[in-house]
């Protein structure tokens, strides 16, 4: 079993986000956690409300960007932050659930709003040990 985790990597103007998981799905879930952490400490977000998300793309990398951009859209239009994710991938299609709550400025102290996920440093790949990595740069 691999440890699932998320991380940020440096980019001069924006933020690199990376999810690592035992499966591609888990790497996508962890990448979403990394996205949430761009805005605030994910531990401050209560997973109260459920939102469903579906998207599709011709390859894994475009699908990762689509998934993150779908989350950014939900965050922007619902004024919500998310901290728990369940992703299912089948043949270029993503079906997911995200749990979170409305932005509470005093409690979340949101640092910055993500504008969009882009193709810079975009990778969905397996490392030599077999762990899945899903990463890209997010414009903030």
């Amino acid at each position, binding site marked *: 079993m691999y440890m699932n985790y998320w991380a*940020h990597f*440096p*980019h*001069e*103007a*924006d*933020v690199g986000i990376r999810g690592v998981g035992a499966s591609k799905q888990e790497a996508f879930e962890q990448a979403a956690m990394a996205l949430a952490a761009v*805005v*605030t400490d994910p531990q401050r977000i209560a997973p109260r409300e459920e939102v469903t998300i579906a998207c599709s*793309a*011709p390859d894994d*990398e*475009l699908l990762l*960007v*689509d998934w993150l*951009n779908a989350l*950014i*859209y939900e965050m*922007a*239009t619902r*004024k919500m932050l998310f901290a728990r994710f369940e992703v299912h991938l089948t043949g270029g299609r993503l079906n997911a659930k995200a749990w979170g709550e*409305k*932005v509470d*400025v005093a409690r*979340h*102290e*949101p*640092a*910055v*709003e993500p*504008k*969009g*996920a*882009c*193709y*810079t440093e*975009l990778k969905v790949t397996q490392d030599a040990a077999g762990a899945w990595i899903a990463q890209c*740069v997010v*414009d*903030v």
Partner: protein
Amino acid sequence: MDLQKFSQQSETEWRVDAFDRMRVPGIIFATEELIRQMDQKVFEQLVNVACLPGIVQGSYAMPDAHWGYGFPIGGVAAFDPDRGGVVSAGGVGFDISCGVRTLRTGLRTEDVQPMKGRLADALFRRIPAGVGSTGRLHLDASEMDAMLCGGAQWAVERGYGVKQDLERIEERGCMRGAKPMVVSDHAKTRQRDEMGTLGSGNHYLEVQSVVKVFDVEAASALGIQEGEVVISIHCGSRGLGHQIGTEFLKDMAIAAADSGIDLPDRELACAPIHSEIGERYLGAMRAAINCALANRQILTHLLRHAMQEVFPGAELALIYDVSHNTCKVEEHPVNGRSMRLYVHRKGATRAFGPGHPDLPEALRTIGQPVLIGGTMGTASYILIGTKESEKHSFGSSCHGAGRQMSRHQALKNWQGRQVVDDLAKRGILVRSPSYRGVAEEAPGAYKDVSAVVDAADRAGLSRKIARLEPVITIKG
């Protein structure tokens, strides 16, 4: 950055001759100190842009260039539509028409100092700023389309500002060729609650003192003098622009191969100007430019109301409004003949020199103001476009300081509360909904804006007119 591949043309011009797939040379305008500080990725991105179809004359980077996505931030490139030229969503960026406007207040710094606490509170109360903030204006479908067609002109017609403002905005406040019908429902929904909001990140509203005038005649033509107070707003097209950028980046990445474009990197996603997707993007991007112009106009209206609370009778006149993430159709001389080009400026400011026909009459003798935002602890600058810049870089100059440190590293180095307290000790009041946001935007996370501006001045891209220092900063 490794300078081995560059040949130095002058103190501030560094050239990479075209090699491999490059169609034109790459040129960076910077001092040696600034170019050495640039990430190697700027070189890669400068070269990649030089490979795109239809690029004309050169792939340029301004003195504040840094690693972006696709194009470097601080990148300028012009494309000829009749030679397969492209339009690139990544070459404009997500925050379409992000820009700066500066207004003069007619007040002296000594008048504002004793009242600055009250003014900071009034501004923070009236200007929606930060993640999750919403504006008071909610547009229905027909008003949304009218705003996307009319920009700041629409806003003034609805009572947000005065007609004189429009003279001092690029395109007289309204970008022609906008097509609201090609803007997706998602983009319009994302904008629904965001009209008249500042946003977050490096966006701000700042009360500034004019501490130094470098050119009295030009400053006087702009109506500014040492010791006076001006107010600047830095923000863009909010969620609508972000969503348009997101959607077209994907559409262009997928469609590039069908158009016969072999992209050096997918992040350079682009489409021929003469193509269905290229024309659709241009219509949507121009609508986003209008959204940004309307947004800054509404924020100006809110600012004027806040000023009335504290300084009744104060009249705020717009000095100028610039956009630094755009693609615009412009005439430029290339090899002795005038060409109609699609000029991408991503993190670069238009800097037309004196006499340019696109400038309003009041500015035609001096040139276009170039408004450079700094950080909450350093300085901002007003420069003016030059004839030289029209020769060097399609009439373009820098746009800001540029980060020298990632947000992640800034969070490790500074605590937001401490940054606010330190700035307060220096007489600068910061109001922000997020201490973490303040830490990520700490002045030390940015390059030296004065070095960038000096390089732009020495390279002839624009001329220094005035230095502004912050008194109050409202951060998102």
